[in-house]
């Protein structure tokens, strides 16, 4: 049984990070009824931006660069953790603007557009950062191994899990306790009503897309030390995100979180028995869930049913 603990822990960490990804994804689906196939690319973008911020290349050969490189890595990492996702959020907003001509048309077009955007972003990443594997430098305090109860744990994974929990709670506070959050939540349930109440729907969409993209980017920064940083690292992101919202319900906060943890645990457990196939377990799970459920989401008709 103790053999399983590391795998369960990995699964839990993965699940918590999936939750971050899924939250951004479900908000976008809820407000805009768009399945964002570029969500994985935004995830990757956040990580790559953080990578660049962390290094000093962005400031060229200037004195600024030298000063930045001289700062302790913990400081630079913290800044990267903030800036990376913000830049990913900006990219998300650009994507939202591109999506506008497709609103009101059949869902196919949004799907095709985000698919194309995923390719474009991946190519941009290749051009900007090359195709090789990169490494995100980490502060010593969260790097390396730790001994707990006779088992070895990765310090970073503990940090990642804890950070994800904080981030999830932060998102919850934002949605529940702030006026912006309330509008986003309302929009996720009934965008027509929000417009009727006088809020600018196009600003709301822009905001939500940016927020969702930033969450994906944040998950990216935190996840790449575990998954590696390559241009196509985002490919395995959209399917679990979709699976999670099918299981947890579109627009449902805790539904997404719980479903995400379950999916993460499923992947983690598969890792214990058939490690080469653990990522595939998500795809198989999606096929099983969507293939066999007569009505995907708790009887509630949504854009996904089209």
């Amino acid at each position, binding site marked *: 049984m103790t053999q399983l603990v590391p795998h369960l822990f990995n699964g839990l960490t993965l699940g918590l990070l999936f939750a971050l990804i899924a939250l951004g994804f479900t908000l976008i689906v809820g407000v805009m009824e768009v*399945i964002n196939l570029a969500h994985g690319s935004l995830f990757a973008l956040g990580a790559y931006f953080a990578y660049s911020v962390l290094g000093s290349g962005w400031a060229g050969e200037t004195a600024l660069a030298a000063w930045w490189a001289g700062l302790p890595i913990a400081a630079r990492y913290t800044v990267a953790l903030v800036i990376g996702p913000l830049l990913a959020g900006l990219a998300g907003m650009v994507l939202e603007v*591109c999506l506008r*001509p*497709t609103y*009101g*048309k*059949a*869902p*196919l*077009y949004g*799907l*095709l*557009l985000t*698919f*194309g*955007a995923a*390719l*474009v972003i991946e*190519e*941009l990443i290749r*051009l900007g950062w090359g195709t090789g594997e990169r490494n995100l430098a980490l502060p010593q305090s969260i790097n390396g191994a730790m001994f707990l109860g006779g088992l070895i744990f990765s310090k970073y994974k503990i940090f990642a899990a804890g950070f994800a929990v904080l981030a999830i709670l932060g998102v919850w506070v934002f949605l529940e306790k702030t006026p912006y959050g309330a509008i986003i939540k309302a929009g996720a349930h009934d965008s027509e009503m929000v417009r009727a109440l006088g809020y600018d729907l196009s600003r709301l969409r822009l905001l939500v897309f940016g927020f969702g993209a930033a969450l994906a980017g944040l998950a990216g920064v935190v996840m790449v030390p575990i998954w590696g940083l390559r241009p*196509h690292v985002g*490919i395995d992101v*959209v*399917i679990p995100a*979709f699976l999670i919202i099918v299981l947890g319900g579109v627009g449902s906060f805790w539904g997404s979180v719980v479903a995400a943890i379950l999916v993460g645990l499923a992947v983690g457990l598969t890792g214990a028995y058939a490690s*080469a*196939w653990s*990522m*595939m377990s998500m*795809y*198989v799970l*999606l*096929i099983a869930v*969507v*293939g066999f459920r007569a009505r*995907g989401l708790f009887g509630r008709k949504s*854009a*996904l*049913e*089209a």
Partner: protein
Amino acid sequence: MTTLSDISPRSGAWLTPQKLLLAAILLTAPYWLPAIGLYQYIGVEMVIWIVYAMGFNILFGYTGLHSFGHGAYLGVGAYAFGLFQHHVAVSLWGGLGAAVAAAALAGALVGLFVSHRRGIYYALMTIAFGQVFWFSAIKLHGLTGGEDGLLNIPRPGLRLGLATVDLNDNVAFFYFAAAILLVVVIGIWRLVHSPFGRVLQAIRQNETRAAFVGYEVWRFKWAAFVVSAMIAGLAGGMFAMAQESAYPDVMSLHQSGLIVMMVLVGGGLVSFWGPVLGVVLYFVARDVLGGLTETWLLWYGLMFVAMVMFRPEGLAGILASLRGAVPGGRRREIAAE
């Protein structure tokens, strides 16, 4: 915007001017391709991808089912061809037959899962299946040669009467592939103009009504999937012959996405010939633009995004409205579903 049902609703004829034109172009390709600065092998590549794209469009454009994981069936066909040559017999028709049969089987199984759905669920399921196939191709070393793929796939000779044509020569192989393309084009033309094809189009336009008018919608969607998978498999067999190898990359999401983009950009949503235009445009981008800049795929992707935003009817649609070919020259939006 024009639609597939607009363009020639009446002529299901075996021979039409466009097909004769295509035949003429294909017949003379080995001569004019080098003349415009391209190499002969590109003719082979294009023909194979056109076969793939035309089959794909039966599902994508005509039936309105959006498969983002279709590379799996091309790949299955390629591997089946290669495995047949290595383990059963070196045989042209045996290999191609195996390719089609294997892809049909794969398509039939996957089709069972996806054909009860449509829209986004459908698309994502096809992505999931595509990834499973791709991953399996990489992991099942013993069968598929893993990441390196199957190598040294021979090109069997074509037996015509008493003589055997050696297809190792790229020009000879090109003519063989072109002949197959013509047969496929004629077959698909008849198919989409047949009652079966019209039902597929009815299902695309209004699945609910099609059911209430008496059609077993699920079965037709499944059949369209299997047919398009079979044609992809045929293209895959030809691909394995052309490259003399088969590898997992063709099943990747990236590659599966390429066929979607090609078909849309070419105008597959509105025209029978859209996929042809789309493949040609892609290869022009890859080889002509690619000769000028390393970032050609980025530009192609941006063009795709721009087309989805502003001109989803693709190249064929743009040409048709320029020619005023649409009766009344009207423009309209596709009804939101």
